[in-house]
């Protein structure tokens, strides 16, 4: 639960930050509307793609194609073949989405690394060598959260607010451990 709270607050700040960045810098290079005209090969002219930032009502070949490759009477025939499409996008949405996604992914990765690598080492320091080594041998389970049971029992005995948080976290760990057993070891679900 603590992890989730931490995550939520971080996520919120990231969101705010992303919005701020988007507002301040603005996106000038990549406009959010375009009129794209694809003109197929015509006579000796090769096919062309034209892109222009115009409003929807102006989105036709005559407005978009600058420096018409053909002249005079051919313009109409050339333009008849072109297909012009007005398209909109929101680059801010894309940017914010990708940033949010990456930050969540990054946080999860950090948390994963912490749980799998850092936490066992910390626990080892805190609770002494002999006890842990012995337990490792006992269970033979080197997966993350393997010590959830113990911590759970310990934190239940001492009851203050801080430990409640840890208790909730350990309960979640136990649940995940249970899920992992049923999916990967016993293969009773999702195989």
């Amino acid at each position, binding site marked *: 639960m603590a992890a*989730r709270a931490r995550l939520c607050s971080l996520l919120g700040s990231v969101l705010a930050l992303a919005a701020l960045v988007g507002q301040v810098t603005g*996106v000038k*290079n*990549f*406009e959010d509307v*375009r009129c794209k005209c*694809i*003109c*197929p*090969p*015509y*006579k000796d002219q*090769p*096919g*062309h*793609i*034209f*892109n222009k*930032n115009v409003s929807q009502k102006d989105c036709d070949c005559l407005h978009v194609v600058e420096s018409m490759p053909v002249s005079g009477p051919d313009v109409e025939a050339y333009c*008849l*073949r072109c*297909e012009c499409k007005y*398209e*909109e*996008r*929101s*680059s801010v*949405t*894309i*940017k914010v*989405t*990708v*940033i*949010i*996604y990456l930050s*969540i*992914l990054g946080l*999860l*990765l950090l948390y*994963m690394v912490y*749980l*799998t690598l850092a936490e066992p080492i910390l626990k080892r320091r805190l609770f002494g060598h002999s006890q842990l080594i012995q337990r490792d041998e006992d269970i033979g389970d080197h997966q*993350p959260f393997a010590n959830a049971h113990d911590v759970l029992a310990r934190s239940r005995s001492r009851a203050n607010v801080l430990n409640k948080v840890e208790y909730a976290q350990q309960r*979640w760990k136990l*649940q*995940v451990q249970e*899920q*992992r057993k*049923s*999916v*990967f*070891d016993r*293969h*009773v*679900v*999702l*195989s």
Partner: protein
Amino acid sequence: MESEQLFRRGYYRNSYNSITSASSDEELLDGAGVIMDFQTSEDDNLLDGDASVGTHYTMTNGGSINSSTHLLDLLDEPIPGVGTYDDFHTIDWVREKCKDRERHRRINSKKKESAWEMAKSLYDAWSGWLVVTLTGLASGALAGLIDIAADWMTDLKEGICLDALWFNHEQCCWGSNKTTFEERDKCPQWETWAELIIGQAEGPGSYIMNYIMYIFWALSFAFLAVSLVKVFAPYACGSGIPEIKTILSGFIIRGYLGKWTLMIKTITLVLAVASGLSLGKEGPLVHVACCCGNIFSYLFPKYSTNEAKKREVLSAASAAGVSVAFGAPIGGVLFSLEEVSYYFPLKTLWRSFFAALVAAFVLRSINPFGNSRLVLFYVEYHTPWYLFELFPFILLGVFGGLWGAFFIRANIAWCRRRKSTKFGKYPVLEVIIVAAVTAVIAFPNPYTRLNTSELIKQLFTDCGPLESSSLCDYRNDMNASKLVDIPDRPAGTGVYSAIWQLCLALIFKIIMTVFTFGIKVPSGLFIPSMAIGAIAGRIVGIAVEQLAYYHHDWFIFKEWCEVGADCITPGLYAMVGAAACLGGVTRMTVSLVVIVFELTGGLEYIVPLMAAVMTSKWVGDAFGREGIYEAHIRLNGYPFLDAKEEFTHTTLAADVMRPRRSDPPLAVLTQDNMTVEDIENLINETSYNGFPVIMSKESQRLVGFALRRDLTIAIESARKKQEGIVGSSRVCFAQHTPSLPAESPRPLKLRSILDMSPFTVTDHTPMEIVVDIFRKLGLRQCLVTHNGIVLGIITKKNILEHLEQLKQHVEPLAPPWHYNKKRYPPSYGPDGKPRPRINNVQLNPIAEEREETEEEVHLLNSTML
């Protein structure tokens, strides 16, 4: 009672020949206050071991069964936790629905009392719509996030947009004026890895560099996905549809629709899609939407406390999921109805419709693909189709059916291997290997290197004058006067090479999909199946087109395909093929056709789609009746009672019920002469999930049914909270506490947790009826009685075991006659003739030993959940 009477009337007219039992039957129906004697047969002692043969029992009917009272009328002091379920247990739909009606009545009766109560009742009435609105909003937003992030990450394998790192390839070149007609995806802003690292855009060096980077990214995405799944939420793997189907049919998998599952599934789905594995995001999106539905239902007590109501929200959520996955709101509703839902009343239909609408609206306003559509591969055709084309369409249907049958067989065999052998112990390694093989083989072929949705889009798109891909490399005459209808043209070299590449891509996809579906990352099946169908369809389409071009004088083409006419649209064939293959795998029909037609927006192609999908279903069903989801449900042994299957056997309830003949007697509770200690011992010694409550050991008549979980919770809370409850306290399920000696401790009243109206059938009820009751009412268990005496119990699991057992035997399997005869003599005439009903069907005295079936049951028990 009602049901019992119904069945007796319908099926029991002829079944009792013996006068004794007939009279006792009538008296049972009459009810109260009768004292009667009857002789128990020797086999009745399966109820309790110590009853000796031929004892005269005196049975007192206390008349305490008021069948009109409901379970919850008596809940004066609700004990927290009673009425909930354990993990991996089946819910009792009937009980949940009763509970909901009760709650509804309570709120309605209070409504007039005050303005606050009125507001509460309004809130209650609206909460259904609120929760589906929230679900729709959330699933639309998450689908948008997944779409955008997956597109970006997929393109990250090739290169990066230097100007704005968060743009994918297409968005990067969006405003660029430097794209050319031939190479329309090239622009200076987008740099491939080779350009960035070694500074070369062309040549073998850059190819190798790109190849290496492609494999590197694919492997790292796959590794990240599988390790996140493994560490945080193992339930996030797979497509999720089989499990959701099971959950919707009334099964509890705790944490399957939880917050962590939602988060990890969303995050890893993007990684899995981006890693280029042969999987899609459509199935997992349904799971994501269902997670949203479940999480939001916790905000509303109406849904959070009632498992049956929660499943209505989940049905709506799955509709929203498909709605955003395919941009097909109506298709989503039909998908929920046809494929996933178990209980789908009209109210749920409207809510699903609304949820699908909201979700589609949100996704549309996010506009993730920049094409103002909900899906990448939206296409529009306006060309007509001709009658003779039905033949190739049906051929595609046959291909789809064959592919479906092959895929189901192969994938299930592979998954069974994973489940049962040691190989399943290495999920991370498996994912890495599959990803590596996929990446190494996929890169050289341009059609497999592409994102699968992109590939489908290319295959669906018709070759207009604006297309420049090699699939559209026809020999053109430049002076063609027509602008819109491009006539059939001879294929150029580009098309021929494209066909070769497509054939290789087809084989590759077929093989890889079999091995990919079921690995421990979120993996959907819709997109790869559609891709396979689209490839096959496009190949067939081009072949028919060329055939029509070169042989336009054949009698079938003569009428429609004159020279210079546009009669064959290969893109349409790709679409029909995609529908056929998806239909072959999932065995959906109506919803699939609607989904595809919503994808294309062309009403005129409904008939070809229907023909292909129906053919593929027929062909697929010829090889095996179940779709991939049912097959996975069966593989995992989920308690799912399929409403589509028919039960055609002639077995009776007595053949299915537990305890079997060799088992220990049925564990029962008595109404008022057991102590707390007795019950605790019984609970500790047995593993049953519920116990029938009978009047007394002597009379054996049914009073009600108490669930194990409720009993444990109630006794535990009573021991804590009520004074004077000790091990020797009497437990009383009856309305009136019996008179006790003065010095005895206070009795514990547990009437509130007793289900006073358990479903009962008599021992001679045919199993077809029992199976029907279970399916239609969603029962969890059903008691089997004989003359009002509890004989045994049938649970959903027993029925599933029975079905499985019957499937393996030669059908029809009549009950072994000796077994019946020995067990229930009263139901037969003095000469031991079987009941008349059995005479109607062929009685196969199969020499089937009891031991064998017993052994099988054991085997089943070990494999079943």
